[in-house]
């Protein structure tokens, strides 16, 4: 059920991931605004047909939403406008996947997770990493109501508790259990090629994998 107290969802990027999240958010009753690097008018037809119910807006307007989802190719992250996104809760769904997308120095030279690198560029945003470890096909197929015995879980990582609470509620409304992995750096446990990234897990199994991953980090 949509209410006017619901956060407005802004999505940057209209590719396969951005449009799948948009449709799932609309299904959950959210108001959704979508923007790309192109003027809003150029995306009007696309949004009407591919994500009916959403509205095509300029990037600055999508960035002004209560919850902003960044779903552009990671190597374009420097095109994000930190001023537009200052103070916002930003979900980073992007991945660095060199075998598929190629090798980029920004992520090779820096040992941190890609979300920490993105958060540093944005500066004043409250970045939460999640939705990067579910396929865009799966996002619209695997959703289950809360309490369902086979409900899939998704991890989230971030440094701001209030931002994570907002994102956890969003994940729940999309049809998934949200499992807090800890600070933004803990997102390493569900980056590409990890067991969490490549598999599908329920909350208990996901928590166990996250505990295992943090144990490894502590031991390292």
């Amino acid at each position: 059920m949509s209410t006017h107290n619901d956060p407005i969802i802004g999505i940057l990027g209209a590719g396969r991931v951005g449009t799948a999240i948009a449709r799932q958010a609309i299904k959950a009753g959210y108001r959704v605004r979508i923007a790309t690097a192109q003027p809003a008018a150029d995306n009007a037809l696309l949004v009407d047909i591919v994500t009916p119910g959403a509205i095509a807006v300029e990037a600055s307007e999508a960035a002004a939403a209560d919850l902003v989802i960044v779903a552009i190719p990671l190597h374009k992250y420097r095109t994000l406008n930190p001023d537009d996104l200052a103070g916002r809760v930003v979900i980073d769904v992007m991945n660095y996947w060199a075998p598929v997308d190629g090798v980029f120095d920004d992520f090779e030279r820096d040992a941190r997770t890609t979300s920490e690198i993105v958060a540093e560029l944005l500066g004043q945003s409250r970045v939460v990493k999640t939705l990067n470890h579910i396929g865009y096909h799966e996002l619209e197929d695997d959703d289950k109501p809360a309490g369902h015995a086979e409900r899939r879980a998704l991890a989230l990582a971030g440094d701001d508790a209030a931002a994570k609470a907002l994102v956890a509620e969003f994940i729940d409304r999309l049809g998934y259990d949200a499992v807090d992995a800890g600070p933004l750096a803990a997102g390493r446990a569900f980056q590409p090629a990890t067991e969490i990234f490549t598999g599908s897990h329920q909350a208990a199994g996901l928590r166990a994998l996250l505990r295992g991953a943090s144990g490894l980090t502590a031991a390292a």
Partner: protein
Amino acid sequence: MEIGAYSFGDTQLNPDGSSRSTTEAIKNLFDAIVHADKVGLDYFGVGEHHTVSMPASSPGAIIAAAAAATTRIKLGSAASIIGTDDPVRVFQQFATADAISGGGRIEITAGRGSSVETFPLFGYDLNDYDELYAQKLDLLLALNNSATENVTWTGTARPSLPQLDVVPRPVQGQLPIWIATGGSAPSSARAGRLGLPLAYAIIGGQPHRFAPLANLYRQSAAQAGHTGENIKVSVATFGLVAPTKKEAVERMYPGWVNLNVEMGRLRGWPAPQRASYLAQVDAPNAYYIGDPDDVAERIVDLHRHLGHMRHFFQGDHGGLPQEHLLESITLLATEVKPRVERLLAAK
């Protein structure tokens, strides 16, 4: 409805799992195209891929050879990775093949490629990915649309052409140039705005979900004033046809495992599971692996959603035995196509 096949080349494996020669794979591919022409397949798409397991790196060369050895079949790239190639050379190679074919059978499909191996291979910077693709596609279209050999084009991704001759011209003045996409909405809209035919590569999920994208493509074309026969959709999927569904499923499986093991090693995937293969071989999923009735019915069902005019299949990967590829091509041409036409006529 045109029925076709496509291949990136398929290097055979020795019993110990090591690769046989890439030369053999190219010869097998050439033989498969000649066979496809003989049995009456409508279309064959080639490459472009640059790996030992899939070595069809030079679609223009294979298509020129096949143009001389075939009489009816349409031949095209699937796709030419235009961002890291020289559009002048691509156009010249395909126009040359067109001359050899007699004209009207040679097509270019321009794509970004599903992987980025051509960037280090040809010395391009991935940060220029979008700009290279946009400019080189623009040049390819300028060459194709030119009324004469003498072409002028200005850009930065490649030296400009100040009134230079680009030869030969295609027999019929132009070649069909398609845009390939894995199904992003902005790519669909862009192809429509350009008024170019669109080839969807659907390698997973449920193909009928591409319906809104095909609709977006057609409406974008209409909005930009493009109508007529150039506004059309083709679909490329995995597929293999055998006399029975059971045989088709078993024939494709070992190659699917080999492909996924190789990709998994590169991309960090877990070991491929038979269950996830089997989950994709039945309607409404993406692997068109079955007997002629099954595959024909699924093509027609997808046609209800996408209105596509060509459906072409890749069955040869991970070391599919050549005789299974050839039998699948025969069945596509002689059993699947008549069924598809019957079903479409009965609608």
